[in-house]
Each structure stands twice: as C-alpha cells, then as structure tokens.
C-alpha cells in the first residue's frame, strides 16, 4: 500500500513537470503509460511502432505544439517541423495528422485505432480518449 502511494505521488509530480499539457491516447493505445524516451522516439519519428502496434500521431497547430516540443521533446519547434518535412517530402512513413482545434483532433483520436496526441490539460476528454501518463527519465 505504501509503495503504491509513493508510486502514485511520483506519477502526479511527474505529470506536473509538464505543466498544462497532457499526453492522450485512443482507446486501444497499447499501454497505460509511456516513458519520456518512448514518447520522444515516437514524436521525433525515430520509431513508429509501440508494442507491435503502429501508432498514429495527432497534433494541434500553434503555441501548444511549441510548448510540447520544448517540454516533452527538448527540441525547438523549427527542429521538430524540419524533421517531419524531411519525411513528408521523401515519402518516409506516417506523419502526424495536424488539426486546427483540439475538439477536431480529439474526435479523430477517439476513432483512431492506436492514436497518440497531446492536449491542454483543461480540455474535457471525450469517450474513447484517455490520459497516458509520461514517466520521466529513461
């Protein structure tokens, strides 16, 4: 019980490190939580599978993406965009789907098989979308 409590408090503290952004997944996203290293691999395009399932990334344009790059990926938004431009214009793999509003994105995420995204923590999540806690460190 004590160990569970410590683990829970650690998780809460970890989530708080990322401020107002939470990572969210579709209903069939193949894990309950992700390490920061795994999240970076997926969003930097290093890997596209997680536990044998192909992950579809979703994102919202604007300041939220900029904050996400800085806090979660530790790269600038320009670096992030250039990485994906390379993939788009050389025909490599599945690139993130981009939306103008979080409601559009969450609707699509709820319908996706193994989708992963990030949203403002104040946004109400629809059915079929859940928070994926990010574990700091490797």
């Amino acid at each position, binding site marked *: 019980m004590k160990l569970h409590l410590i683990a829970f408090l650690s998780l809460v503290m970890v989530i708080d490190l990322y401020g107002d952004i939470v990572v969210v997944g579709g209903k069939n996203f193949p894990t309950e939580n992700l*390490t920061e*290293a*795994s999240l*970076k*691999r997926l969003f*930097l395009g*290093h*890997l*596209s*599978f997680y536990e*044998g399932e*192909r992950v579809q990334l979703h994102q919202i*344009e604007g300041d939220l993406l*900029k904050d996400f790059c800085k806090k979660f990926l530790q*790269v*600038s*938004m*320009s*670096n992030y*965009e*250039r*990485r994906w*431009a*390379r993939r*788009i*214009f*050389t*025909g490599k*793999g*599945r*690139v993130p789907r*981009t939306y103008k509003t979080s409601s559009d994105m969450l609707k699509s995420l709820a319908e996706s098989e193994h989708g992963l995204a990030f949203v403002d923590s104040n946004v109400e999540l629809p059915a079929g979308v859940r928070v994926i806690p990010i574990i700091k460190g*490797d």
Partner: protein
Amino acid sequence: MLRSTFFCLQLLWLLPLQAFQVDEVDIHGSLSQSYLKTHGHEFLIPGSQDGALDYTELTLNAHKQFDRWNIGVQGLSRDFGREGDFELRLDWGHVEYNALDALSLRFGRVKLPFGLYAEYRDVDMARTEIFLPQTFLPEDYRGGAVAYDGLGVAGDIALGETQLLQYHLFWGTNSIKDDFFLNFLTQDIYESSTAIAAGALFPGSSAFPGLSQDQAVLDTKSLRGGQVVWTYEPWLWRLGYNFLHYIGHFPLMAYDLKNFGGVGTPSVVLDERGLELDIMWHILSTDLVLGEWFLRAETMLRYNDYTQGDLFMDRFAGPGGVTSNLANGDELWSWYFSAQRQIFDNTGIYARFGKSMMTKETPRAASTNQLSELSVGVRYDFNQHVLGKLQAFHYWDYRGALDQATNQDKSWGMLLARVTVHF
C-alpha cells in the same frame, strides 16, 4: 517563364495553405523560386553573372497508408539553367511494407542515402541553407545521387532506451539524364576530340541541334549501396557510414564527319565503346543538436575507375599523338563542417567551410572537382508555410566541371536568394 513563376508564387501566397486529405490520401506540395548571381564566374545558369531567376522547383506528393503498407509518389518539375525546363519527373514513388520498425521493404523509386542529407536535398523546408555543400553534393553532378530504382531494405532498431541504429541497404539502377555533368562531358569531349581526331561527332550534346538530347543519358548498369546510422538520443547525436557503388556506361558514339553531309546522323562509326564508369564512394557523417545549435560534419572518399574507347583516349594524347594513359582512375577526398544556430523562433543562421581535392589525378581528373568553399546564410520563416533564405558563397582554388566550359577564373563568389511556399 518569369511571369508564370511570379504568378504561381502570388497565387500560393494567397491560398489558405494546408496539407489536405482526399480519401485518406495525404497531399503535400512546395514551390521555390530562386535568384542567383555570381561574380567572377558563370555557374550553372547562363548569364548568372548578370543575375538569373532561371531556377524554379515545384513538387507535389501524395501518400496513403493502410495497415503496414505505405504507398507514395512525388512529382518534381524543375527549371534550372540548362536542366529541366519544367519537365515533370517522378522524383520518388514507391511501395513500402513495414513488418515492424526494424524491418521494412521498399520497392520503386526511392530517395538515395548519400551521407545524412542528400535524401532531402530538394526539401528546402528541412534545412537552413539553399545549396548543400558543393564540395560534397555539387549541383553540376546532381543526377547520380538523387534516387534509386530498385529494392531497399531498411529499419530502425532501438538499442536500449537511449540508442538507435538505423540501416538502409539497396540494389537497383537509376536514371541520369540531362544533367549539367552530361552536357559538360559531351560538349567537352566533342570540342577537344574534333581537333585531335579530325572530325568525330558525339551526339547527345546540346552543341548538336540536329541530334537528340535524349541520347545524353547515362546507362546505369548497377547501383547498390548502404547506410548505417547510430543515434545517441539524449543528445540527438548521430554517426553515420555510407557506401555507394555505381557501374554505368556513357553511350557516346564517334562518327566520321569527313563524308558527312550535315543532314541526319552520319553512318560511319569510328568508335562505339563510349565511356565505362565504375565509381565507389565511402562517406562518414556526424551531427549533433546542442540546444539551439546544430553542428555537422561529413567526409567522403570517391574512387573512380573508368575505361574508354581509343578515340576518347586520344582526348588525352601526349606529344606526337601518343596516348599517355590507357587506364584511367582518380580519387577524390571531400569534407566540410557546418555550424547552425536558431537565433529566434523564425530565424536561423549558419556558416560552413569545405574542401574537395584530388588525391590521385589523371590528365582528365586534374581538370575537375577541386574546390574550396566558404558559405554563410540566413533563413527566415514568414509563417508556417512561407520561408525566405539568403546564402552567400566564396569559392577558391576552383577546378569544377563547368569551369572549362566557361572560364578559368579560380576564385569567385555567388549570392543566392530563395522564397519557398509549402503545404
């Protein structure tokens, strides 16, 4: 041409640019317009010393993914000096099966790995500079390292939580057509050989309006290579090794001009062996992201063995008409390093220095490929879909391919400006 280019730019500027989907097919595109001005040497575009806008690129791609399959295609239309003339070409188009991250199979026309950056040399959005290092990826030899037509095996293997190993092996051929290099070679051999061989004609050159330009095509017999890249993810530090082996034939025909009336193609062939090329490249690369800094360096060794028919050998004949080299080969060593910094969210600057030099020379090779380059530049992103770039170059100790065709100035400069719109 100029009017249509500006019209396209204005149109794209006004459009609400956004990548879009049609039936789950992702559509993306880009349009670039450049201005090039050289000082002390004409380079790539005729009239470049007066300033030239004859450099436009347009891409459009479509990509669909279902289950573990990727299918994509990109068209490239290019006008660049004597190259392209807005002819639409297949830039890449392939089918890929992703069994898992560690193994995928690609079939079709696939972008060719040649160092860490050649695959996206036409993706202006992906970098700060306009031209990649001319010591490494010279624009006048562009055709050889763009794409392969064949089969590729690639994968990304996670080594623990902090390291990644990426590989890409491929076998196939490629299409090298209407390249600056080919135009140079045909013209150079013709001009030299006619004097020596007393009347030989080499078709395929723009110097011969009566003969088809389509013959200025390198017949690639085999193209194979591979790349391995190790990444230390916490630092985004990459180390890469590449090799590429090219075997091809340049089907130049030498005809007897003495009895040629000047209509159609001469019938008497003096030499049909052309030029046999066997070239191997080895490349080492590294790059590193340090906050807002991006540092990179690459070095390359190229071994070039080629043989040719007697008439081509006369091109290098010594005093008294005695051929001095019956077997040819040369070696080239190139390197560069670059430092780039993002100074604001929308502004990046860079400086780059590089050198290429012949480590083994032949009479032919001595006249090509030597270069020292210093370049600085800036990129400004107006918004998410429109960017502008400015790049200045200084070259010295220059003995490039086009140099012979124009002038012998060994030190010269270039200014490039570009606007790119993409969605």
